[in-house]
């Protein structure tokens, strides 16, 4: 989808103002939200690409102004509701309870195996790399153009590279295809390539930074040789 999340090259977002020494989490709720991600991914309720698609569907004004873990909350919540893991009415009811009683305790206990599972997911990860039949269609040095169309679902084809021409710099293994997995259409793995685009191709010679390029990873269906 053409969302405001697709920020590459958008102007007007203001200064970056980098800070050092920020804490990993700023509150207990951030820790809980963070842990919900590996916990639910481990259980297979949805996949990482669906989590990303959920982020993208956050109302644009909220997306641009809320904090990072609010984005996570949004997508975990909407994905859990979508998949029936959580009942929205129950969630609303429980939210009112904790809003009125902020110090009310969480339910106790639970299986000790849960913590071990979630910790294992964090420590081991889960690669999206897949073995597939066949060989990559393109090789290093091939000039390719990225498809210029505008799908409605989840995609990793940023708008700023659509229709643009670059050169393949790296050929990788096959990985889960986000345009399938993010839209609930299976893994459909495809080869991934790093395509290097001259800044002038992306932004035009007048505003492009001199002597610079962007390396962008594409899945094979995104590109055609030119």
């Amino acid at each position: 989808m053409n969302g405001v999340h697709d920020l590459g090259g958008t102007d007007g977002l203001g200064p970056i103002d980098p800070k050092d020494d920020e804490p990993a989490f700023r509150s207990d709720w951030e820790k809980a939200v963070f842990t919900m991600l590996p916990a639910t991914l481990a259980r297979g309720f949805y996949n990482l690409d669906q989590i990303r698609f959920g982020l993208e569907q956050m109302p644009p004004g909220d997306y641009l102004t809320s904090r990072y873990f609010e984005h996570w909350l949004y997508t975990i919540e909407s994905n859990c509701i979508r998949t029936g893991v959580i009942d929205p009415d129950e969630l609303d009811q429980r939210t009112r309870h904790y809003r009125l009683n902020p110090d009310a305790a969480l339910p106790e206990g639970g299986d000790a195996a849960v913590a071990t599972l979630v910790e294992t997911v964090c420590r081991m990860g889960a690669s999206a790399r897949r073995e597939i039949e066949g060989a990559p269609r393109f090789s290093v040095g091939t000039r390719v153009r990225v498809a210029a169309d505008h799908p409605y679902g989840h995609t990793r084809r940023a708008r700023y590279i659509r229709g643009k021409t670059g050169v393949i710099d790296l050929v990788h293994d096959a990985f889960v295809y986000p345009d399938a997995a993010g839209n609930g259409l299976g893994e459909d793995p495809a080869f991934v390539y790093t395509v290097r685009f001259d800044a002038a191709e992306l932004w035009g010679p007048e505003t492009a930074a001199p002597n610079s390029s962007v390396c962008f990873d594409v899945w094979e269906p995104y590109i055609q040789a030119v």
Partner: protein
Amino acid sequence: MTSIQIPSRIAGPYPRSEEDIAARVKALEALMIEKGILTTEAVDRVSAIYENEVGPQIGARIVAKAWTDPEFKQRLLADATAACRELGAGGLQGEDMLVVENTDTVRHVVVCTLCSCYPWPVLGLPPNWYKYPAYRSRMVREPRVVLREEFGLDVPDSVEIRVWDSSSELRYWVLPQRPAGTDALGEEELARLVTRNSMIGVGDPDRPAS
């Protein structure tokens, strides 16, 4: 007289005050605990990993080893995931890593314009500025301005800037150049010079105290 209504799939307006958000999260947490998906112990253990254990000091150690061990450096550039595993580094959001090497003629810098992908196992969780719209929007469009004005890094036009937009599940990070005047330093002292920003590509390693 309503202002623009933007729909959400979530019943009710999206919560925004700190108290509203905390209550919402606690409710979600409670339901997940009851359904056997989550425990408070899981939250404690996972957050402890990223608060106390996994952070840029891990990447720094890897960089320092690459600076002092040419064969390790070769392995790191050939297969970063495997080389990091040698040093016990790996895991979620670092299942498939690639390290790109700064040289006298090319500088690399990492961004994720579509979300906030970042190599957690070697750099820890990303700083806010990395995740927020300004960095994500500007780094691919005006890298020299961003490096100079926001990070104090004036890269001469003779040095190519290559921006890596982390659009796939490959996690890129930067092997910065070893600072001059560090010939006498050991791996541990070198690691202390390696900043998080130098591995994102928006900074240089610290210089040794003279």
